[in-house]
């Protein structure tokens, strides 16, 4: 990559970042790229708040009797960690930041179909986030992010309503984003960009948007019912009033299981882009990978009962949910094999984004395989509600989704900011995060198998060794996440200016300048080849 002194290039060209200045130009922007950056700033903030809660929890658990806080506070910490990380970081992360920034560019469009709706979704996100944060400052909530009834509806006397409303409002931001993406992908593709020429990231965004549209309304309904129950005692969930507390769990997981795929499908899309680019290969079996995204989205709506094997649901329902849960694992397994096969006979370079992507494959594989223990009925009975579950979903959502998100940020950072970051530091951070992550969560698999329940503010002494290991890992992980914050911020001012296509990637977004002009392209690109035509010598790669 060529290094040109910043001042020479940056200040002369007009692009989406310097086209206008001032707070107003950002708060009223309709540019999908700027909205993506608004999201980037807000979810990064939320990530570090949620992360701080996690660090406090891990420090607290260094002693069996609890080292830092009262059980009451501990319960609020894990609730806050879960609510913030799931609803205000993971769910919007890749779709709202990278999706917003990239979907129009990858399909050769000027913007999303409904730019004003797009801005509205950010405002809805902010409203939900601020309400939730203020509830936390006002004293917090202690129901767990799962809000199980009748604890949440009758017994909890913390700020359940405020947080539920916060999450409810935020849901509309997801719905609008999903709607925007679906319409955009259907209607605004550049000439020649047929469905099977779409980058896999777009397929992943499309599948995710479908879940946003079909799943999030169910969450909204569930939260409304919870609110009605809490305020008016209507008796939907309260057994004392003839209600059914398990109905809440059915409704909640009907959304929240697919939500797991809202968190991981976009990551799979990002990783497909990165692997293709840094091995200079077409994704092995493009069709199957695209198809597996869609089938994951479909089957994910049929497996919610695996969260309820020990609630006393009928044995036969358990059997069906178990079988379907195994089924939803197959498309994920296929993807892992296909990514690995993509490397075969490639030309592989180990730039930072690639390290994150490869880290993703490894950790996601472990997360997926440990899911088998929970899909299988007999072992789930023992492991459900223990640290095994905690470890499993962190492998998927942190080892998987967050790794992919960071990989994506590093991959598209030159496009987003117009600057290059320090590759050495970035690789170092990827390494630290990988080590810290495994040290934090691997011991938790063992804790769960030994029988330590989750959400315990104190615990029997024999679990201490593994807890101390986990806390040690969390400290490393915490530092690992801070490093990118520093060198990425540094690059904004001091980084070398990025060329239009620093990685030699094939996507349309790399055909325009870095950072792009507000309209994305000087003229609408015409697509004549498939997404990953790395072998054609049409244009130089770097």
């Amino acid at each position: 990559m060529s290094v040109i002194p910043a001042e020479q290039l940056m200040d002369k060209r007009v692009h989406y970042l310097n086209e206008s200045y001032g707070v107003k130009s950002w708060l009223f922007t309709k540019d999908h790229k700027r909205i993506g950056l608004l999201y980037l700033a807000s979810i990064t903030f939320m990530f570090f708040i949620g992360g701080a809660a996690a660090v406090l929890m891990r420090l607290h658990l260094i002693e069996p009797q609890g080292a830092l806080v009262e059980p009451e506070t501990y319960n609020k910490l894990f609730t806050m960690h879960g609510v913030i990380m799931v609803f205000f970081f993971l769910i919007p992360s890749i779709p709202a930041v990278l999706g917003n920034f990239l979907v129009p560019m990858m399909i050769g469009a000027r913007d999303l179909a409904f730019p004003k709706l797009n801005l509205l979704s950010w405002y809805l996100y902010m409203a939900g986030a601020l309400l939730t944060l203020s509830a936390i400052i006002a004293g917090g909530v202690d129901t767990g992010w799962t809000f199980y009834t009748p604890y949440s509806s009758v017994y909890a006397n913390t700020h359940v309503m405020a947080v539920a409303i916060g999450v409810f409002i935020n849901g509309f931001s997801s719905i609008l984003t999903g709607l925007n993406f679906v319409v955009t992908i259907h209607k605004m593709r550049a000439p020649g960009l047929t469905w099977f020429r779409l980058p896999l990231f777009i397929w992943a965004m499309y599948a995710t948007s479908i879940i946003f549209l079909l799943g999030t309304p169910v969450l909204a309904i569930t939260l409304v019912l919870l609110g009605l129950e809490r305020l008016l005692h209507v008796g939907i969930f309260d057994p004392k009033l003839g209600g059914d507390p398990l109905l809440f769990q059915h409704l909640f997981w009907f959304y929240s299981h697919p939500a797991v795929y809202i968190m991981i499908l976009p990551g799979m899309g990002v990783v497909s882009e990165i692997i293709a680019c840094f091995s200079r290969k077409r994704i092995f079996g493009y069709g199957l990978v695209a198809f597996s995204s869609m089938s994951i989205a479909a089957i994910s709506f049929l497996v919610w009962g695996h969260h309820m094997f020990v609630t006393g649901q009928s044995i036969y329902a358990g059997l069906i949910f178990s079988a379907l849960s195994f089924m939803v694992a197959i498309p994920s397994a296929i993807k892992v094999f296909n990514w690995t096969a993509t490397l075969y006979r490639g030309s592989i370079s180990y730039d930072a984004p690639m390290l994150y992507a490869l880290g993703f494959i490894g950790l996601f594989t472990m997360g997926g395989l440990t899911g088998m223990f929970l899909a299988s009925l007999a072992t789930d009975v023992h492991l459900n509600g223990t640290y095994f579950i905690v470890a499993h979903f962190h492998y998927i959502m942190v080892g998987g989704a967050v790794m992919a998100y960071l990989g994506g940020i590093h991959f598209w950072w030159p496009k987003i900011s117009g600057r290059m970051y320090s590759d050495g530091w970035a690789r170092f951070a990827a390494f630290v995060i990988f080590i810290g992550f495994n040290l934090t969560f691997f011991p938790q698999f063992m804790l769960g198998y030994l029988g330590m329940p989750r959400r315990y503010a104190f615990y029997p002494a024999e679990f201490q060794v593994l807890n101390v290991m986990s806390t040690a890992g969390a400290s490393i992980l915490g530092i690992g996440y801070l490093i990118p914050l520093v060198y990425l911020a540094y690059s904004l001012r001091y980084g070398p200016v990025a060329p239009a296509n620093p990685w030699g990637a094939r996507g349309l977004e790399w055909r325009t300048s870095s950072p792009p002009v507000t309209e994305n392209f000087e003229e609408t690109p015409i697509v004549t080849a498939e997404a990953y035509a790395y072998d054609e010598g049409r244009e130089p790669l770097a």
Partner: protein
Amino acid sequence: MWSGFSLRPDQASTIAKGVDELHYFLTAVTLFFTALIFFTIFYFMIKYHRRSEADRPAEIEGSLPLEILWTVIPTLITMVMFAWGSSLYFRNSRPPVASAEIFVVGKQWMWHLQHPEGPREINELHIPVGVPVKLTMTSEDVIHDFYIPAFRVKKDVIPGRYSSIWFQATRTGTYHLFCAQYCGMQHAGMTGWVYVMSPTDYAQWLSGGVKGESMVDAGGRLFSQLGCITCHVADKSGRCPPLQGLYGKAQKLADGRSMIADEAYIRESIVHPNSHHVAGYAPIMPTFQGQISEEQLLQLIAYIKSLRGEEGKAPKK
């Protein structure tokens, strides 16, 4: 810090070994595929490392046979897991007919346990080794979860309904009892101990200490105290159904349905009398919701279950 450290939980019930065998199989599969993927990635990374910026590897479209292979193999493996896990679960969920019964009520943040013979315990459960034990459980407030890791059993304890689990301990000793469903402030403190005793020790334990009245006797006392007796026994006008022989019977309801009169049915009759009406009787039974604790309800049910035999015959004690 290292005291009591171990990587394997105690195996102290008849099902623990079977669950562990499946767990080890799953672990082996996990290790194998993780190693396979890690190894392959590392191998490719080294072997196909980019040597020159001008490298332009030949494209490979994909390979149908390969893709079929790695669709079919995981499918087969998961089918084995599914069949294994399900058959084990099926076997583990059926209690043997001749199980000893114990009753559990979860309550923020403690476990109340009653033995039919009379003894009541808090956060402690004494059971004999080698005898199948069935627990009938409910909650006074929120959802809890009764979990004995050494037995590999766990079941939610849900307000408004009865859930049950069973186990047969295989080794005497003391084992953890945990609440595994978050239930509020002292959730982490809702723990206790299971004491598995030799049959003789257990018999001694049952007869020693504060014995208290049996659950049936306690239920009988409540039956008169709460005035159930004035309708169901004393009232000879035929306005109230007799309760003798009710348990286990298929009861005909006013709306034409028929329901098996099990514990849940009897509980509903007392707490929500309007949820179903017996054919041929006017709905005059008052609700007792809020007047009886879950433990008392279990005693009443134990009493009603004991009312067998001919109508009119004095209930046997």
